[in-house]
């Protein structure tokens, strides 16, 4: 069982129109090699599922993106990104950040969605089913399953076990769970047994492809 793949080979599983989750919060835990390689593939109509839109300007301006599902597309300063999104006719779907994370986990956990009080009485409740549980109303937000997840880890092994550092965990864990195919880039690829069973942030069962550090990518490419 060896999940190590060259980056181009791993990205072959992404087809036009797919829903692609991308981990990271700001630059922390962002799979930069995978996204920059994805930009070169010329895919179309991708639905990007990521907390923030700021790092997808390349994909957006090249017309690769039809929709972005996120919680915080960009801060106030990103005027070029804002214009790019409008120009490219990209649809934006916003979810509160906790709902966004939990909907990913829900999909990966075989559950039917998330019942939350967050958004009750606001625009986030529009079009949502309200479910009353023991006298309290909750919004029902359906699970957010994705075709492919692109995530980042500090360390990986060939079975796809991942270990992360600092605030780089963020959405990477729930996205690995939610995806039909999870591609993880890692700063370091270790031998089996070098990731402690007590320090494994994402068990290999949730990971399908492991892409090594940038320096080793070219020679490994298939």
């Amino acid at each position, binding site marked *: 069982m060896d999940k190590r793949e060259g980056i181009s080979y791993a990205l072959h599983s992404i087809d036009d129109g797919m829903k692609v989750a991308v981990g990271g919060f700001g*630059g922390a835990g962002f799979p930069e090699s995978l996204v920059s390689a994805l930009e070169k593939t010329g895919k179309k109509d991708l639905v990007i599922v990521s907390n923030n839109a700021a790092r997808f300007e390349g994909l957006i301006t090249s017309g690769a993106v039809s929709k972005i599902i996120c919680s915080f597309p960009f801060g106030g300063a990103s005027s070029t990104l804002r214009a790019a999104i409008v120009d490219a006719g990209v649809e934006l779907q916003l979810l509160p950040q*906790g709902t966004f*994370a939990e909907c990913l986990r829900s999909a990966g956990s075989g559950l039917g969605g998330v019942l939350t009080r967050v958004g009750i009485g*606001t625009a986030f409740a529009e079009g949502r089913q309200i479910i009353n549980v023991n006298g309290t109303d909750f919004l029902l937000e359906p699970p957010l399953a994705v075709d492919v997840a692109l995530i980042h880890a500090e360390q990986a092994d060939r079975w796809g076990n991942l270990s992360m550092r600092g*605030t780089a965990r963020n959405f990477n864990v*729930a996205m690995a769970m939610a995806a039909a195919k999870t591609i993880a880039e890692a700063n370091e690829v270790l031998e089996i047994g070098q990731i402690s069973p007590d320090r494994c942030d994402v068990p290999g069962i949730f990971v399908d492809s492991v892409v090594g550090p940038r320096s080793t990518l070219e020679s490994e490419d298939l």
Partner: protein
Amino acid sequence: MAWARDEIAGRIAADIPDGWVVNIGVGIPTLVPEFIPSEREVLFQSENGILGMVALGPDGSPDPEMIDAGKRPIAIRPGGSFFESSLSFSMIRGGHIDLGIVGALQISRAGDIANWRTDEKMIGGIGGAADVCSGVRNLWVAMLHTTDTGESKLMMECGYPLTAIGVVDRVYSDLAILERDGVTWHVIATAPDVDLAEVRRATGFPIESGDEQ
């Protein structure tokens, strides 16, 4: 004389009890940690997956994998922990966070808060604001009392899109500290040389005259 931003942050810091876990939003709230007395153990949570974050010291080198929710470089104190986003929001929504300190565009008499965008058509992001405002045990708002054009941000009903309803417990503004009980608002303190009448003029809903100082 109205309180400056630093003074607002200092007033908030003075009111946070030892042992509380606090989530802080952008703006004035980010100034609060530096005013916590060093002997008081207050833990700051950031929704991107850290409990026990501290400012990066002058000698600290920024680590790209160590940022706060405002994407600024931070460090972690001994006894802190890292976790993924769904657990982070379990903490927030589940009522495990003692206090959230956020900024606001508008606050209503019933404690509704609007703090993520001014216009239905504007492209903006909610981030973790709705989760924090809905989920924490106590929600304190740090804000200027009025807009640049002099309109009150404390009004009968918010005009901007809401973040959460009926959640604001206290407002720390440049003019006063106000506390809400249902639709009743009390003044806890006013800024130096600011009197109750001035606070009332600057506020779009009634304030009780009872227990102001």
